[in-house]
């Protein structure tokens, strides 16, 4: 019997190595022995989580995160090819993510989007300096389950509250969850404005999105 644990480790390590060919090779090897869902969860996603941790510790850098995310997406596609129609991995949820109006900070929000996608979410990154109404319009258009709002300045934090207020006005608040993030945001701020969660970094954003949407 094949060493299941070892094969999953190999997949995870391949993602951490940020080499697409290595990931595809490891997935190809694992798929003969392990169900695709397990490879995605315990191999590819586990590897990607580790990439997030290493990024936050300054051991891996933005290009590596992007390459690892790309490699993981290719790995998921390879697994889906062999699955019968209709059994392909379902998206965990639809998330609209952006930086609020008046704030041009982009990097942190983009990293969150990059990490959410391979974790199984359909992500619509609507960029930076996004008007409040655009968050809600995009959420309606994509039938989103969650809106992620980023703010990197104390002066733009207010935009996160405005997104929530607009969702209430439109009668969508009970259906759409709201996540807030960015250096000046805190759990206390999230509680104060009635957001569903606060995430300090990209790995936490993935974990909290899963908690709320699964």
């Amino acid at each position, binding site marked *: 019997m094949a060493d299941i644990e070892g094969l999953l480790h190999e997949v995870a390590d391949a993602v951490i190595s940020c080499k697409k060919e290595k990931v595809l090779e490891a997935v190809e090897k694992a798929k003969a022995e392990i169900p695709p869902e397990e490879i995605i969860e315990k191999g590819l996603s586990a590897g990607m989580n580790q990439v997030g941790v290493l990024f936050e510790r300054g051991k891996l*850098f933005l290009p590596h995160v992007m390459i690892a995310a790309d490699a993981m997406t290719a790995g998921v596609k390879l697994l889906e090819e062999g699955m019968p129609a209709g059994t392909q991995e379902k998206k965990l949820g639809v998330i609209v993510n952006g930086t609020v109006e008046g704030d041009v900070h982009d990097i942190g929000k983009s990293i969150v989007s990059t990490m959410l996608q391979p974790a199984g979410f359909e992500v619509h990154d609507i960029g930076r300096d996004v008007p409040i109404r655009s968050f809600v319009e995009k959420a309606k258009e994509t039938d989103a389950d969650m809106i992620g709002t980023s703010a990197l300045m104390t002066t733009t934090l207010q935009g996160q509250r405005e997104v929530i207020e607009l969702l209430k006005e439109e009668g969508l608040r009970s259906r759409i969850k709201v996540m807030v993030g960015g250096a000046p945001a805190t759990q206390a*701020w999230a509680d104060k404005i009635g957001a569903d969660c606060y995430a300090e970094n990209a790995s936490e954003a993935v974990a909290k999105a899963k908690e709320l949407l699964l």
Partner: protein
Amino acid sequence: MAAEYALRMGDGKRIYLTEEKILSEIEAGSGNAADLGEIPDLSVDEIDKLAQILMMPGKAVSVEHGMEVPVTHDIGTIRLDGDQGNSGVGIPSSRLVGCMMHERAFGADTMELGHIDYSFKPVKPVVANECQAMEVCQQNMIIPLFYGAMPNMGLYYTPDGPFENPGDLMKMFKIDKARESMEHAAEHLTRDTVWVMQKLFASGADGVNFDTTAAAGDADMYGTLCAVEILRTQFPDMYIEMGMAGEMVLGMHGELEYDGVRLAGLWPHEQAPLAAQAGANVFGPVVNTNTSKTSPWNLARAVTFIKAAVEASSIPCHVNMGMGVGGIPMLETPPVDAVTRASKAMVEIAGVDGI
């Protein structure tokens, strides 16, 4: 019931902690820095000293006699005349008046002249005005007057500059193209900075302050280090201060090296020797404040990082202290209790040469 001391969260919120809790927060904050930077924790004596500083009864505290350090300033005079929701207090004043107020009223040991855009690139078309302002200020002032600006390499990317935005390229997984764009931008940053400072040094500037180095990541730091190196060669006697944007150099490129050292992921104690190697006279390390953590946690973390930077540095370290850095809460007008405690700890425990 144990006595409680009035402290703050990183977002400025007032909290009350017991001595036992303060000590455990200090240990955790110092431990976090030690873990991330692979540097020593604060010693038991240093932890006790930090706790004593935090628990002092006065609203404002100060360093002990004989331990005073120079205080330098960044952001030009914008803290006075700025009125756009930034750190400024909106007092209408010319830059000459602002500089002289810092010298004669605020006790600044050095000051800097800065443009409202406070970045090197937008100074290019108005450099003649900046030179004139520098000359007028120099004629009226005694303390060393630098020219200060941010390298701000983001201004070289679309939509503000000529090179394709690496953030956009990365999203399309065009990693090599993104890296090329960063390398081009860094070259231009170096070239523009040197050109601007040649003019300002010719107009009497006593030095230059690179404020928020590496804000756009490792290529921003690379471009700045190259500019420092060239300016040091061309102007051997000028003061060059290199202050950072954040505690760790963001790896946007990930592979750039200076003097054989990869820039991405460097912590303050690893940045300082490179600043010295390039030719800086003063290094300005930064440690970011976590808004979700307490002031003992944040200050212990900041002191641990900065102490290691001071020990590793062959040039003076003037730690960045202000809104959201150096263990100070993230508020536009940082509270005096937090600012003075953090400053005292930086001088008496981390051993900084200036603030």
